[in-house]
């Protein structure tokens, strides 16, 4: 009997080891490419991605973001693999044949200089969606190539019999004629400049590979050295390697676990760069003038974690308390890359899962998981796990409306503060607005609360610690209040009594900050000493 069990166990282990893991589907948008330069850079980018020697399996698709059509990149025609994540890439190129004519004027509105402003960029907007759940994993923007503005000066008098702007307003045909003549004369100069920059762009792009696009979003453990005595750390060992998706050259930030009041958070120490990677460990080095804080933490025996630099969600996930509830929500939008400001704010918050419903392409990848061709892949755990959303956020003008999908109830309606120059629908949507929505929806788990008293002098409380799952912004003002129960026609109603004001001081982590109490330090102390519950709210 024992032999049978052992052989079955062995067979199971063998099968698990034999099965291959699903990889990444990289979808490159093809509709933005429109001229010789952009085409060349784009082709070079595809070449670079195609030839990546990645630690993870991936398949490259050519994608049309308007029609949602996808097709395999020819070199992947015979090596398509199932994917666990779809990475959508939207390139933007501003290489042009005709750069805009800029006129600089003095205070008397006289033209000082006229030039063609050339500052081409090649930018990638990237969104990663988990295929099994439709959760938006990450959203980032990479400026692959960005050149400083180079001016091509124009003797405008040669082409225009006066002020070009006046001529444009008065006689558009004549203006166009002059501009055509101008561009004809300067065509060679523009081509030379573009080619020079293009060759530089292509040489930069060749270092861009799949691992950079699909880099993992997890925090990893830094191995501290017992008995460390130096003043500065030059090299650190990380408890994760190629198996965990660590890649050489990637920047990480180190954080040490700290306590404040009854809460814990991670404090920034130093930045590191991965130098060499083994199967389950890596070596990273600190840049110049870094490493002193790491050394102090090594000596103190702190718990140290490394988080991909600039990855706010990974850092915030590290700081999220274990019992914090999560909410699945979605934003009403018309395309995958729309409403970016609000999306980024939500993605950065690990207690929120943003469900993507504007990517019908995901259906194709879900269907691949059922394809018999991929019987050798471990994909059972990727099926039947699609996530629905409970909260729907709609932006209309300055209004933000949150609806509970379960009951169709409008949970909150608030106005966002937009600037005159904000054209995007979601611009101006910030942490305060998000906090209002979340606390209206689930006040028990998403309300701002005072957790500890941090500073107290005689009979005054000067600083308290606050926790807000939605996050904090600097210099935000709050009101501190207590509640009293009032009887109105037999109904018990709560009445807020403002006992003090406060302003955000030090922000420890995305959800933990100190509140410096102004006006009412004594009243706050009295409330605390009487063990009366004290609350906080945004000051209007």
């Amino acid at each position, binding site marked *: 009997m024992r032999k049978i069990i052992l052989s079955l166990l062995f067979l199971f282990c063998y099968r698990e080891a034999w099965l291959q893991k699903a990889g990444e589907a990289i979808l490159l948008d093809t509709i933005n490419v429109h001229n010789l330069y952009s085409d060349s850079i784009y082709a070079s980018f595809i070449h670079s991605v195609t030839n990546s020697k990645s630690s993870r399996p991936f398949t490259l698709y050519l994608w049309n973001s308007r029609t949602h059509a996808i097709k395999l990149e020819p070199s992947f025609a015979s090596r398509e693999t199932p994917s666990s994540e779809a990475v959508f890439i939207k390139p933007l190129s501003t290489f042009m044949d005709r750069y805009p004519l800029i006129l600089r004027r003095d205070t008397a509105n006289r033209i000082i200089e006229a030039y063609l402003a050339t500052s081409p960029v090649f930018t990638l907007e990237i969104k990663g969606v988990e295929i099994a759940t439709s959760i938006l994993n990450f959203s980032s923007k990479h400026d692959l190539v960005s050149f400083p503005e180079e001016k091509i000066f124009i003797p405008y008098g040669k082409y225009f019999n006066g002020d070009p702007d006046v001529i444009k307003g008065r006689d558009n045909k004549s203006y166009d004629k002059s501009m055509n003549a101008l561009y004809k004369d300067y065509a060679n100069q523009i081509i030379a400049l573009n080619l020079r920059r293009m060759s530089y762009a292509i040489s930069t792009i060749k270092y861009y590979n799949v691992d950079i696009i699909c880099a993992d979003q997890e925090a990893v453990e830094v191995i501290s050295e017992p008995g460390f005595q130096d003043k500065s750390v030059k090299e650190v060992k990380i408890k994760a390697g190629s198996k965990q998706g660590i890649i050489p050259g990637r920047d990480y930030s180190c954080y040490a676990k700290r306590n404040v009041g009854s809460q814990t958070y991670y404090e920034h120490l130093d930045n590191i760069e991965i130098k060499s990677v083994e199967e389950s460990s890596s070596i990273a080095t600190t840049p110049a003038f870094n490493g002193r804080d790491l050394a102090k933490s090594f000596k103190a025996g702190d718990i140290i974690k490394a988080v991909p630099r600039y990855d706010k969600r990974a850092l915030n996930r590290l700081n999220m308390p274990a019992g914090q509830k999560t909410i699945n929500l979605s934003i009403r939008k018309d395309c995958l890359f729309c409403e970016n400001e609000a999306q980024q704010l939500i993605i950065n918050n690990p207690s929120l899962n943003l469900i993507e419903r504007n990517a019908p392409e995901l259906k194709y990848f879900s269907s691949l998981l059922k394809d018999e061709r991929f019987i050798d892949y471990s994909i059972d755990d990727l*099926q039947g*796990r699609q996530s*629905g*959303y409970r909260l729907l956020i709609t932006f209309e*003008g300055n209004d933000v409306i949150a609806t509970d*999908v379960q009951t*169709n109830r*409008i949970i909150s309606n608030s106005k966002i503060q937009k600037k005159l120059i904000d054209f995007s629908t979601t611009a101006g949507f910030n942490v305060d607005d998000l906090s209002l929505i979340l606390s209206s929806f689930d006040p028990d788990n998403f309300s701002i609360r005072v957790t500890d008293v941090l500073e107290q002098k005689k009979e005054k409380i000067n600083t308290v610690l606050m926790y807000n799952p939605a996050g904090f912004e600097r210099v935000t003002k709050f009101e501190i209040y207590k509640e009293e129960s009032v009887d109105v026609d037999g109904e018990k*109603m709560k009445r807020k009594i403002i006992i003090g004001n406060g302003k955000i001081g030090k922000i420890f982590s995305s959800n933990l900050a100190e509140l410096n109490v102004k006006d009412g330090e004594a009243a706050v102390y009295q409330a605390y000493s009487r063990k009366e519950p004290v609350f906080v709210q945004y000051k209007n």
Partner: protein
Amino acid sequence: MENKSKIILFFLFVAFILPGVFQDRLDAQTQTQSRIAIVGIDIIKDSSKFFISSGMDDYNSAAVLYQVPNACIEYFSNFKNFVAIDKKNLSLINMEKELQKSEEFIDGYIVDQGKDEGVDYLVKSLYYEKKKNLVIRIYDIAGGNVKCSKEQKLESNILGIKNINNQVRLMLHELVYECFGIKFTVLKGNEPAGSRLKHLTVVMGRKSKVKEEDQVEIFELVEENIDGEVLKRKNILGTGKVNEVVDENFSNVKIESGDKIIADALSKGKKLYCTIINEYK
């Protein structure tokens, strides 16, 4: 044996009666809130226009008028007496719920199905371009009739319609009093200087969509017996202005007229109420 039957009876009481009592209490609490849905605005064009306009004024007023449904949503959402139901996103929400029924979601997160809330009332707005009048109607779904309606010329100046959100909010305050008899209880008088009263604490706050500078009417309800039928008459005692919105439930009102009568009424223990006057300033 007798003890045993007593215990069984006790458990039966706990199992069947108590949950019923609590449920009734819960129902009573939720029943006080009416479910209300807001639909879009219809603009009735002026067909008698003979001259050709630049189109800009039409464009501006249309852009402003499309804010009316949103202003209604803002008014009714989180209002103490109402639950606002989202009609605008209904198709999207239904699509999402249908999607969640598929087998792809079998091990994933889904919302509870069948918890959609019905609507008791529907708010619809109309704008007559010729008269420049805005009409807001509240329809009773069960009765299938118009419960109440308010037509009003919108305040405007050379730049177009003035603060549409505030004008709609004041119209709705008048409507909800007419439709649902929603009035705000005067809790107590403040700062008694001699026999005169200057301020009142009223049970209306941010949840009642009250704003500072709102004009209020202070009144008592007098019961009149007409041919055996008891009717309530509104006896206006004075007016005031919202001085400070304290919190979600309470506001301070500065009395502007009738302070003596109001003080008298309060000292006699009479129940006083407030409503917001639909007067845009």
